[in-house]
């Protein structure tokens, strides 16, 4: 084709085709493309456009054929090539586009457009070395700064992503040094990249010299330049100078919190190893005085002088809302206190720290952020000083003059929040109840004060409901009275009826409804949070585990689907956006994007969603063997998930959940103080968490490490399942092939090995634990479904390869034990309905999700294994011969003696019948339970929980310590304020009823269990067919 052949068609002829594509009228576009091609058969561009249209229409094979045709004609114009690149990219063959550009660049050397096109192809391929080579070549030819920076970024990416030798960074630095010395920099971003490289090499002085040169003028915001200068001085241990610079910044910008930390670190000569020029360095105080070479006295003196400086800033800000200089005072007192721990002056400094908090309270106690601001300092207050601090704050509330009603209310809220932070196990139940009543009354008052606010605005006292919820949950944890949980639900639902957008209420409700086995209600609230795009990654944890343990599979599927789609879209779009950053000369963003994309690709949430999606597909088959076999086949006989969870992949997982949005009683998925341990919880319970509620959870490092490690184990366990299942389903085929057959040995070894890994994920090492699988000590090793599945898989191996005759009957026995345990909370029969004690109700919250998992996973795997083995043994049920690694596997029936087969069938039949009976009994129990629930669960809850919910309240109720008291206090306060709350709220107070709420809880539990019954039925049908 001629050099211009790619784009030889006149634009006016192409216009209708472009328009049709833009308007997504692909049928029209295809007609136009075909017609134009008939007139211009040599136009590669038209061929590519037709391929593009076909791809959009889903005709991928035809599109690929046309791309191939275009590629063979070796186009050299960028329009054709860039369009071809788009089509190849969409077809999943981006490397083909790189090949086309490479050829074009060879044919037309030194063409900038084509070289940029090639560079972009390499960006899309994440081929950092090739990127560098092309960029260097462009820089050599065209001497533009941007191409040099493209090359430098490519080098940085090789080091950070491809783990290339860090010495390469020196090369990048040398490139920029040369550029800087010869021409200076055109762009601020180029300067920042150079400074970051110098920092990386520890060349702080050079960086400072560059910054103070003319190049530094590229900083248009003066404080940005100063901040960087200060950081570099701090890194190079020039503390005096650094402090001076930070002071200068603070004088210009006295609210800059990060600067206070750096300033104080500088005056105390606390070293920083990294200025963090390029990174998003977290603000953190450096209070490790061992890093400082100063004496205690010297440090104390310097902190005193810093105090003087900060007081000066405070005077300047005396009328504003800038909290910086005032909070900095607490930070200084904190450091003085910590310093004094090394000497003998603890008491006075502790007093000063308290006084600084009181001062801050006087000034900002009315702000919603007060408690968050000082939260980090409260843990330092000695236990014996806490009451006196609270007392001082209470006094402030009464002494401060000029506070509006709103400000006073806000101050009281801050006080309650602090009280909560300081709360201890020694507070009596009555004390907690009193606080709960007090905050709800205050809430009623806040509703009144908020009546003129727009309904979309946050109310003045929204936190009061979460505070009341916290106190009530504390009471629940002490008494295990389920009524308190229901009461919290009532308060939160009422709060949401007043202000429908408060998300802390919603996250609490999701957790509580999940606890009470009401997944549909939890999901309803989750949906109202409009969790989409990146929030899917950070917030799905609220609902993923509850849905895993529910029968609401379509909802579960939708959440999983959204996660997968989010990641798929990110992976598709990321490289193109990196190209935008390159082209816009925002080099720091290039690195950031690649690292971020990488982080998302390693997402734990993504892996979890992938494997849970796969397992859900298997569960959904309800014991239909052929469907399950097809699903497993699609997963390459279960090998695919194994590849997802290699040691390296697991080690690399990134955890992106936003856990601070979780309620304090459930700080991470799988950790919930409300449900009781059944044998042993799957995740670690932290005693500290148990002891102390908190407003905003911040995990300490050890907790994060433990949580992440547990999730790695969990996801690994799940990824093993499909492959083990595949092997387990096929064991019969190997039983009589012969113990010395290499394929059988390999098979046996693989199964044995995977079962050991599965056991290890439950904390069991070696074979010794399998001695007595029915013993209590063995059963304590995990959740019923996991243990049952483990014993099943181990049994497969034993039963088939070692011909243990007792293995299967033992499995049935295990099924019976678990069913007995998990149904023990409800004694129901044809004549006897459920009359639960309080303990029965709370125990049901633990048992029902576990029972559900046992049935839909453990029992289901067993059921399909039995079906599969039967099929293999039935005369006429021969499986096709399979060739495995060169060995022809004869069908089991060919090799198995007829008498053996008959005996085995007999044995299996007996086992199957016995298991069927276990399932039938369970179904029978479930049917009776459902009958009991119908209308009665509501009565049970009303009786135990809201018996007293009638809106009346007297202080005597507090003494009786029963659930309902707090809700009554609220309703009573609201009723007495009727007429002052605004029409909408007034009407709501009159119409809000508890009974419909409890009916919904009952319906949700029932719906879940009805689905479980249906599942059990289909499992039984499958076994009997």
């Amino acid at each position, binding site marked *: 084709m001629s050099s211009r052949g790619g784009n030889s068609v006149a634009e006016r002829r192409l216009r209708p085709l472009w328009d049709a594509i833009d308007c997504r009228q692909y049928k029209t576009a295809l007609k136009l493309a075909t017609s134009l091609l008939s007139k211009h058969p040599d136009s590669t561009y038209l061929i590519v456009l037709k391929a593009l249209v076909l791809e959009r229409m889903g005709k991928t094979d035809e599109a690929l054929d046309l791309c191939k045709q275009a590629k063979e004609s070796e186009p050299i114009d960028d329009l054709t090539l860039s369009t071809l690149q788009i089509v190849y990219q969409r077809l999943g063959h981006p490397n083909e586009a790189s090949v086309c550009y490479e050829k074009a660049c060879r044919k037309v050397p030194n063409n900038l457009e084509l070289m940029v096109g090639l560079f972009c192809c390499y960006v899309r391929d994440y081929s950092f070395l090739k990127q560098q080579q092309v960029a260097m070549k462009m820089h050599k030819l065209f001497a533009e700064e941007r191409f040099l920076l493209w090359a430098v970024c490519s080098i940085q990416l090789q080091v950070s992503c491809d783990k290339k030798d860090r010495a390469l960074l020196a090369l990048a630095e040398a490139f920029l040094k040369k550029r800087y010395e010869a021409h200076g920099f055109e762009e601020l971003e180029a300067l920042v990249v150079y400074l970051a490289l110098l920092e990386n090499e520890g060349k702080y002085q050079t960086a400072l010299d560059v910054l103070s040169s003319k190049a530094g003028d590229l900083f248009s915001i003066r404080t940005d330049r100063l901040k960087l200068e200060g950081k570099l001085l701090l890194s190079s241990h020039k503390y005096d100078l650094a402090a001076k610079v930070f002071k200068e910044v603070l004088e210009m910008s006295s*609210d800059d919190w*990060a600067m206070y930390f750096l300033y104080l670190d500088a005056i105390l000569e606390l070293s920083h190893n990294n200025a963090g020029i390029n990174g998003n360095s977290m603000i953190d105080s450096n209070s490790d005085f061992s890093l400082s070479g100063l004496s205690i006295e010297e440090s104390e003196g310097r902190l005193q002088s810093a105090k003087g400086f900060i007081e000066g800033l405070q005077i300047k800000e005396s009328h504003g809302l800038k909290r910086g200089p005032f909070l900095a005072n607490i930070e200084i007192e904190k450091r003085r206190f910590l310093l004094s721990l090394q000497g003998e002056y603890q008491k006075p400094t502790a007093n000063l720290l308290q006084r600084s908090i009181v001062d801050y309270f006087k000034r900002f106690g009315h702000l*919603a952020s007060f408690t968050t601001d000082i939260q980090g300092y409260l843990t330092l207050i000695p236990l014996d000083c806490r009451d006196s601090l609270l007392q001082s704050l209470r006094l402030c509330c009464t002494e401060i003059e000029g506070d509006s009603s709103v400000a006073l209310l806000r101050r009281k809220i801050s006080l309650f929040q602090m009280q909560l932070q300081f709360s201890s196990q020694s507070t009596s139940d009555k004390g907690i109840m009193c606080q709960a009543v007090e905050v709800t009354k205050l809430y009623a008052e806040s509703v009144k004060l908020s009546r003129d606010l727009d309904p979309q605005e946050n109310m003045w006292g929204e936190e009061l409901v979460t505070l009341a919820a916290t106190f009530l949950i504390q009471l629940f944890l002490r008494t295990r009275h389920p009524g308190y949980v229901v009461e919290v639900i009532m308060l939160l639902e009422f709060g949401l009826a007043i202000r429908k957008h408060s998300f802390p209420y919603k996250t609490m409700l999701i957790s509580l409804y999940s606890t009470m086995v009401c997944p549909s209600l939890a999901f309803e609230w989750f949906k109202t949070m409009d969790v989409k*795009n990146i929030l899917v990654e950070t*917030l799905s944890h609220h609902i993923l585990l509850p849905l895993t343990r529910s029968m609401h599979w379509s909802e579960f599927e939708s959440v999983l689907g959204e996660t997968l789609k989010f990641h798929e879209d990110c992976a598709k*779009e990321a490289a193109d956006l990196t190209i935008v950053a390159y082209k816009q000369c*925002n080099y720091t963003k290039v690195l950031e994007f690649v690292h971020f994309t990488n982080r998302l690709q390693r997402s734990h949430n993504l892996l979890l969603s992938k494997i849970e999606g796969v397992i859900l597909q298997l569960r959904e088959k309800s014991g239909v063997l052929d469907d399950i076999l097809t699903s497993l086949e699609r997963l390459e006989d279960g090998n695919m998930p194994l590849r997802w969870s290699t040691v390296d992949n697991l080690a690399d997982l990134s955890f992106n959940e936003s856990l601070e949005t979780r309620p304090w009683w459930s700080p991470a998925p799988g950790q919930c103080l409300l449900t009781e341990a059944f044998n042993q919880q799957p995740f670690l319970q932290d005693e500290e968490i148990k002891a102390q509620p908190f407003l905003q959870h911040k995990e300490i490092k050890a907790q994060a490490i433990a949580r992440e490690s547990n999730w790695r184990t969990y996801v690994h366990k799940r990824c093993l399942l499909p492959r083990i299942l595949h092997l387990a389903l096929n064991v019969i085929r190997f039983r009589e092939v012969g113990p010395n057959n290499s394929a059988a040995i390999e098979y046996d070894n693989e199964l044995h090995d995977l079962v050991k890994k599965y056991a290890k994920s439950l904390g069991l090492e070696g074979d010794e634990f399998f001695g007595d699988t029915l013993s209590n000590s063995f059963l304590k090793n995990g959740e019923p479904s996991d243990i049952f599945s483990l014993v099943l898989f181990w049994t497969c191996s034993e039963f088939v390869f070692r011909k243990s005759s007792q293995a299967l009957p033992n499995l049935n026995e295990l099924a019976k034990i678990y069913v007995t345990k998990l149904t023990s909370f409800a004694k129901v029969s044809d004549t006897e309905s459920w009359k639960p004690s309080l303990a029965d109700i709370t125990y049901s919250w633990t048992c029902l999700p576990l029972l559900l998992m046992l049935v839909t996973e453990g029992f289901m795997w067993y059921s399909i294994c039995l079906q599969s083995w039967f099929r293999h043994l039935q005369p006429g049920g021969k499986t096709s011969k399979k060739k495995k690694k060169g060995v022809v596997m004869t069908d089991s029936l060919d090799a198995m003696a007829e008498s053996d087969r008959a005996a085995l069938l007999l044995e299996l039949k007996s086992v199957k019948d016995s298991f069927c009976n276990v399932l039938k009994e369970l179904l029978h129990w479930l049917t009776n339970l459902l009958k009991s629930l119908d209308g009665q669960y509501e009565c049970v809850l009303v009786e135990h929980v809201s018996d007293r919910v009638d809106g009346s309240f007297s202080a005597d109720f507090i003494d009786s310590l029963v659930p309902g008291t707090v809700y009554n206090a609220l309703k009573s306060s609201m009723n007495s304020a009727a007429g002052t709350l605004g029409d909408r709220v007034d009407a709501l107070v009159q119409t809000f009823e508890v009974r419909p709420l409890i009916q919904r809880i009952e319906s949700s539990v029932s719906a879940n269990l009805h689905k479980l019954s249906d599942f059990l039925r289909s499992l039984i049908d499958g076994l009997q067919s």
Partner: protein
Amino acid sequence: MTTIRRFCCEDLLRFANVNLDHLTETFNMSFYLTYLARWPDFFHVAEGPGNHIMGYIMGKVEGQGESWHGHVTAVSVAPEYRRQQLAKKLMNLLENISTTLFFVDLFVRASNAPAIKMYEKLGYVIYRRVLRYYSNEEDGFDMRKALPRDVEKKSVIPLKEPVIPEELEYD
């Protein structure tokens, strides 16, 4: 006590407390990344003690000639940091990034009275109504504030007639 710095990708994983607000839109990733890639100076985050994200502003520059202006795509503050003039601080930051701009504009739901009130306090005026601007068919207001370069304040003379989204000059 607010550290204002450039927004970065990792902040997307930490801003749930801001974006759970029902009036704050969570855009798709390519939208955020496009802003970061093209206008990183117009995308800032405010961070407070304990590294809590207090709020953020996301904007861009566009237009030609006397229409060269800054546009506020999103400004949002977490509930506990409201009523501290943080939005004002973030808006001022965007207004002062460049002296070349003639005005700054933004769109707001016609029903979002608290936000409209706040923008008015910051010197913005309703320039025009955009019919059915939002996906739920709700009207939007195009609000503007003239910057010093627009000496005669021509950019903020309100239009009498509403417009439809197709008539807007920019996306």
